[in-house]
């Protein structure tokens, strides 16, 4: 009964989405105030309805109602509560409902917090949001009904893939979707601006907080996924240039470019049509990410053929959303006129370079991800595009970006003084050289790529600290006064430095982990001790243990350093009887500087166990760096000037951040 109510509210939500997507557009064009006023009300109503549907689905999962097809297929009565919860979005149908719910959430947020938006503009933004919602609700209801019943109802479910039964993965999809769907607001703002034919600093100021919120969620979502891969997959890898990962990385790259270009629109009233294009492309890539991953098309175009109704729907939705917006762009964007003039060496020029490199990087990842499909579609040979390709094409694009970053974030608007900026970066340059020397002398690795990575990370991190210090005047005035000035800096200035520092920390972590890993793969008997990167690792015991819905073989490793105990780590190989699948849980001991990562494998014939032991330096820095970037987004969002829907400040108050 509750499921039918959920189904019904989802249908109602679709009707409301249709009204929200059409009437306000008409009203805004015809200046009919009642229809314009309808938009916020419809957005709130849609949110309420989708929330009810979502709760109905949640209820079915928590109550293990196996008469619902998706509960039967993805759940089991013995499954722990957390995964009954996360099981709602652990499948195609449920994840679509989550998608639509987050979309409605953002729509409602625009309706509530966008109070100072011009009424017709707000109506158009919400109408576009409504149209996106309409497409997705139709997709959900017509091809992927989450409330489909089974008759007769089975006694128990088939269980959830044990790989998905993990706290990291339970919250990875919602974060990712918050990011994906959050970019829909940037898209809607861009479409509304194209309809009105007007983009100005105010537009950029409205669109930035929404983009920032989405970017922040996507950053954390990707990091969460990467973290999950790291501690789940059993060989310490964290990024594989897998199509599924690329699908989330592309909107992140495009969204990062958008955040930077929107600053130029806000401050200097130029790069407008490019920013609009980026807003469209970012959300288009997010759509691609949602659809292609979920529909399995990234594995093979043939996935369409196995499920034609969904495939055709996906293609039609993508075609309308992306093709329609690009057509509107082709028609309306040429009329947008750019404003202020600037010299090539300037903040504008630096941000343009940033956009050129990020956009090319996005296109490169897109090309590498889709190329096998394209070639296959043309009847060409089947090829693989793997990590070596992405490393060879993506990393070189990042080199100039990272080299230019510290100077670019300090250079003046309009016409910059590059030698002056460089001379003020002397401290960071000296620090970078020191790090480079230390890395060359201390670290085991002498790979050029590794050294370049350390130098780039240090340069970005120290350069950002340097920038903050210069801005506060630490080299010119008394430290106490500089400290007061530092505290008085606007939060948006802090957030920029913080985000760049996070990037530097992230790069250091990635470089250290990727090039400085120590690995030992060997057979160990209980009681045996081996050396690993200065530690002594003993396989203390192997025993059978019982988990809530699995049985496991647990290996206990005792770690010592120079005879003094450091820690004890457990690695398990779990077997899930319902799903009939084994899952390996590595044992990990983390500190700020390194992870010890142990995996217990299978026994061999003479009583020894295959084990894999890793010493991974600076792993925490990767998660910490991503966390800093997310935190930077939060700091920026709390800036008074950027607060969602904050009033447009007077022109004079901008000088502080210039």
């Amino acid at each position, binding site marked *: 009964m509750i499921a039918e109510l959920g189904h019904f509210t989802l249908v109602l939500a679709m009707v409301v989405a249709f009204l929200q997507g059409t009437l306000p557009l008409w009203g805004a064009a015809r200046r009919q105030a009642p229809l314009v006023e309808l938009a916020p009300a419809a957005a709130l109503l849609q949110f309420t309805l989708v929330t009810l549907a979502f709760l109905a689905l949640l209820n079915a999962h928590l109550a293990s109602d196996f008469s619902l097809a998706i509960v039967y297929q993805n759940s089991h009565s013995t499954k722990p509560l957390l995964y009954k919860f996360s099981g709602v979005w652990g499948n195609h149908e449920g994840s679509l409902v989550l998608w639509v719910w987050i979309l409605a959430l953002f729509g409602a947020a625009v309706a509530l917090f966008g109070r100072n938006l011009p009424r017709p503009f707000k109506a158009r933004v919400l109408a576009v949001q409504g149209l996106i919602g309409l497409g997705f609700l139709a997709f959900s209801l017509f091809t992927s009904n989450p409330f489909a019943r089974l008759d007769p109802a089975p006694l128990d479910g088939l269980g959830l893939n044990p790989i998905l039964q993990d706290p990291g993965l339970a919250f990875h999809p919602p974060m990712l979707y918050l990011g994906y769907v959050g970019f829909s607001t940037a898209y809607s703002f861009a479409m509304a601006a194209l309809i009105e034919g007007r983009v100005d600093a105010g537009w950029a100021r409205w669109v930035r907080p929404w983009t920032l919120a989405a970017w922040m969620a996507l950053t954390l979502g990707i990091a969460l996924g990467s973290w999950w891969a790291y501690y789940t997959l059993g060989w310490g890898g964290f990024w594989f240039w897998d199509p599924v990962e690329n699908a989330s990385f592309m909107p992140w790259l495009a969204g990062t470019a958008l955040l930077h270009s929107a600053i130029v629109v806000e401050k200097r009233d130029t790069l407008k049509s490019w920013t609009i294009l980026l807003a469209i492309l970012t959300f288009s890539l997010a759509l691609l990410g949602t659809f292609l991953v979920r529909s399995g098309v990234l594995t093979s175009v043939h996935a369409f053929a196995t499920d034609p109704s969904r495939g055709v729907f996906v293609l039609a939705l993508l075609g309308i959303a992306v093709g329609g917006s690009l057509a509107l762009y082709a028609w309306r964007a040429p009329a947008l006129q750019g404003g202020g003039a600037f010299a090539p060496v300037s903040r504008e020029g630096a941000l343009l370079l940033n956009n050129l490199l990020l956009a090319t990087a996005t296109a*490169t990842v897109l090309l590498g991800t889709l190329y096998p499909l394209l070639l296959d579609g043309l009847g060409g*040979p089947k090829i693989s595009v793997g990590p070596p390709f992405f490393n060879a094409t993506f990393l070189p694009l990042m080199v100039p970006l990272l080299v230019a970053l510290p100077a670019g974030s300090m250079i003046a608007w309009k016409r910059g003084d590059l030698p002056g900026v460089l001379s003020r970066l002397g401290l960071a340059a000296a620090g970078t050289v020191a790090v480079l020397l230390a890395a060359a002398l201390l670290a085991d690795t002498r790979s050029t790529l590794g050294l370049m990575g350390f130098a780039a990370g240090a340069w970005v991190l120290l350069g950002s600290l340097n920038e903050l210090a210069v801005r506060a005047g630490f080299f010119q005035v008394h430290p106490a006064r500089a400290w007061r000035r530092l505290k008085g800096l606007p939060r948006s200035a802090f957030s920029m430095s913080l985000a760049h520092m996070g990037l530097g920390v992230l790069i250091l972590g990635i470089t250290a982990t990727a090039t400085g890993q120590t690995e030992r793969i060997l057979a160990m008997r209980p009681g045996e001790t081996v050396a690993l990167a200065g530690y002594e690792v003993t396989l203390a015991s192997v025993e059978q243990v019982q988990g809530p819905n699995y049985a496991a073989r647990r290996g206990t490793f005792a770690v010592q350093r120079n005879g003094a105990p450091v820690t004890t780590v457990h690695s398990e190989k779990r077997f899930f009887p319902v799903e009939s699948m084994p899952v390996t849980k590595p044992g990990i001991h983390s500190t700020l500087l390194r992870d010890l990562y142990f995996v217990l494998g299978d026994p061999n014939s003479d009583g020894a166990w295959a084990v*894999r032991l890793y010493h991974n330096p600076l792993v925490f820095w990767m998660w910490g760096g991503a966390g800093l970037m997310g935190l930077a987004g939060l700091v920026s969002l709390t800036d008074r000037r950027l607060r969602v829907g904050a009033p447009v400040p007077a022109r004079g108050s901008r000088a502080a951040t210039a």
Partner: protein
Amino acid sequence: MRRLAMLLLALFLVAGPALGALSPDEELADPALEARARALSKELRCLVCQNQSIDDSDADLARDLRLIVRERLLAGEDESQIKAYLTERYGDFVLLTPPVRPATWALWFGPLLLLAGGGALCVVFLRRRRTGLVEPEPLGPDEQARLRALLAERGKETSP
């Protein structure tokens, strides 16, 4: 993030003995040769997985291919010979780095072309922006005189 890979793996090899990726008994005694084997393994696709190298995969076929790589290295073959042996059987699909040939020109040179094209657009754009910036440097002598006069007048007005 390898949900898909795992699901695919589960679909493809329903049974088959469960093995860890690279197990200790596979390793070669000679560390230099073993290092070459590892490096080469990272370049070869586990065919039944999604974009996983045979070095990372615990699929049965990946293990066989790892053993073949090591046998052939021991027999004195070099990397390109082993790759040729595998592509003869599995096509270019087995190589994680697609070879440069007409069918992959767009893939390999596309990014460079995009960078060049985007760079050219940026240069055009920057030039236009700069022409807008041309500041009143080339003032004629009489203009300069007039400016001086105006400034002088203004100075009188505002000074106390």
